[in-house]
């Protein structure tokens, strides 16, 4: 469902993510843990392109969300001038040349017409407009980000109606149903400023659900909440998980992670240091950094 290939992200010269590879299958619940500054939020935001990756590719099903990263495609590398030069002048064979180019990042700004054409053709074949992809990728933020100028109901129906996915009546009935399910139907005409943090976050989750997403991303959804409100949000997320939603969650709630995750990913300094089932990670961590981190948070 989501495939991240050799993703890097630099802010100025600082490398936040270095060479992340990650695949999330349909229905899988992946929880990303790690200390702050480890790049886990940035990774999540790279999935729906709120941060544009510096290199690497993000795939959503059969669609490419990022630009083509030529280093990932041998057939594109083969059209480059550098490749021809390595073969002709340095008399490497094809696989050596490709390896050298990939390892040392030898591609230059100008690699000739053929190369440009190959990149463009690939891009046209697989790339999908990001706005279109985002309709199917729900996202929940640490600070909820409900639209302050709209009532709860209008928050929920704005996107489906504006994007012509539903008529207004359909959207209202869907939103009402979801609001009733989380017990906040009586707040439908309230503005966000009148809601508690827990209510806001649950409505933010429901806002994403109104789009019928095929995957949900959660960026520390409980970090900004008062302790007594964390439970209600986690409860809703658990319900989503049991309904079979594909989820990628960045969180500090280790107990929650243990409960819902199929796979835990431990990140540190922009790299995935360890991944495995909750049992493997929590009971038997292999990497010393993972051990160190878990000893502090558990």
């Amino acid at each position, binding site marked *: 469902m989501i495939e991240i290939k050799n993703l890097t992200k630099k802010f100025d010269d600082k490398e936040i993510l270095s060479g992340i590879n990650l695949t999330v299958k349909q229905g899988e619940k992946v929880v990303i843990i790690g200390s702050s500054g480890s790049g886990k939020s940035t990774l999540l935001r790279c999935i*729906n392109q709120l941060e544009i990756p510096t290199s690497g590719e993000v795939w959503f099903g059969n669609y490419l969300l990022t630009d083509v990263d030529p280093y990932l495609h041998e057939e594109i590398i083969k059209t480059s001038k550098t490749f021809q030069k390595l073969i002709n002048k340095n008399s490497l064979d094809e696989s050596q040349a490709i390896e050298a180019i990939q390892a040392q990042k030898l591609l230059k700004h100008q690699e000739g017409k053929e190369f440009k054409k190959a990149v463009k053709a690939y891009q046209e074949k697989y790339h999908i407009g990001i706005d279109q992809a985002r309709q199917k990728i729900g996202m929940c933020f640490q600070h909820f980000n409900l639209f302050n100028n709209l009532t709860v109901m209008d928050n929920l129906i704005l996107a489906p109606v504006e*994007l012509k996915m539903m008529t207004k009546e359909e959207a209202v009935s869907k939103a009402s149903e979801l609001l009733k399910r989380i017990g906040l139907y009586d707040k439908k005409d309230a503005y966000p400023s009148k809601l508690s943090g827990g209510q806001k976050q649950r409505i933010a989750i429901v806002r994403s659900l109104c789009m019928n997403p095929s995957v949900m991303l959660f960026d520390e959804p409980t970090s900004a909440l008062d302790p007594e409100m964390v439970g209600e949000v986690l409860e809703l997320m658990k319900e989503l998980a049991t309904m079979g939603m594909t989820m990628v969650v960045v969180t500090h709630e280790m107990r929650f992670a243990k409960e819902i995750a199929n796979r835990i990913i431990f990140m540190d300094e922009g790299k995935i240091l360890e991944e495995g089932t909750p049992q493997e990670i929590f009971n038997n961590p292999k990497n010393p950094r993972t051990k160190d981190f878990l000893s502090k948070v558990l």
Partner: protein
Amino acid sequence: MNLFKDIYKILATPELRNYLLEGFKNTLAVTLIAAGIGLVLGFTVAIVKIFAMDNRKLKPFAVIGNIYTTVIRGTPITLQLFIMVFAILAIPGFKVTAVILTFGINSGAYVSENIRAGILSVDKGQMEAGRSLGLSKYKTMTKIIMPQAIKNVIPAIGNEFIALLKETAIVSIVGSTVGTLTFDLNQATSTINKTIANYLAPAVLAAGLYLGIVYGITLLIKKFEKRLRASDRN
């Protein structure tokens, strides 16, 4: 007291009273038209500057916008008025247009900075939330960001409007009359002076009128603001 006698005399003499009323009317007219120009201009410049932040094609327009705000805000309006009326638009019969345009262009520079600040003051998360739902940047801007920005900006725009209204008083420096119009309250005042040889009474009357308008505008803005803030209190 003489002052009250003079004020009474001005108000009681139709000819003198008409000067004041005419000035009152013209002041409002110039302010309103100039404010309209300023709003449209300021809004456009602000939007261009905001969108140019991540759109290379708009960069040159943003540079023009920056030059505009820098020059206009960096020079006295008195000079701008002189240059516009006696050089750039020194065409007979265009004095009124030149004056109104000057005020509009001047006001636009300040308004654009107010609106820009208002847009930037809206939490970044609002745009991210809109985009993450698949809404385009333009849609998020018009449905989410602008309504919140405008609410934030109303007091500043109100101040700008009041400042503009009072600034129109300097029209008198580019000529005693503009066409057949007696152009603003001050203008009317100085005309009245010639008739009654007392500076205080017309000045006090004019000041009273200015104060009245400004106070009225302040009340209107407050009311408007209160309505827009409904979503905060509910």
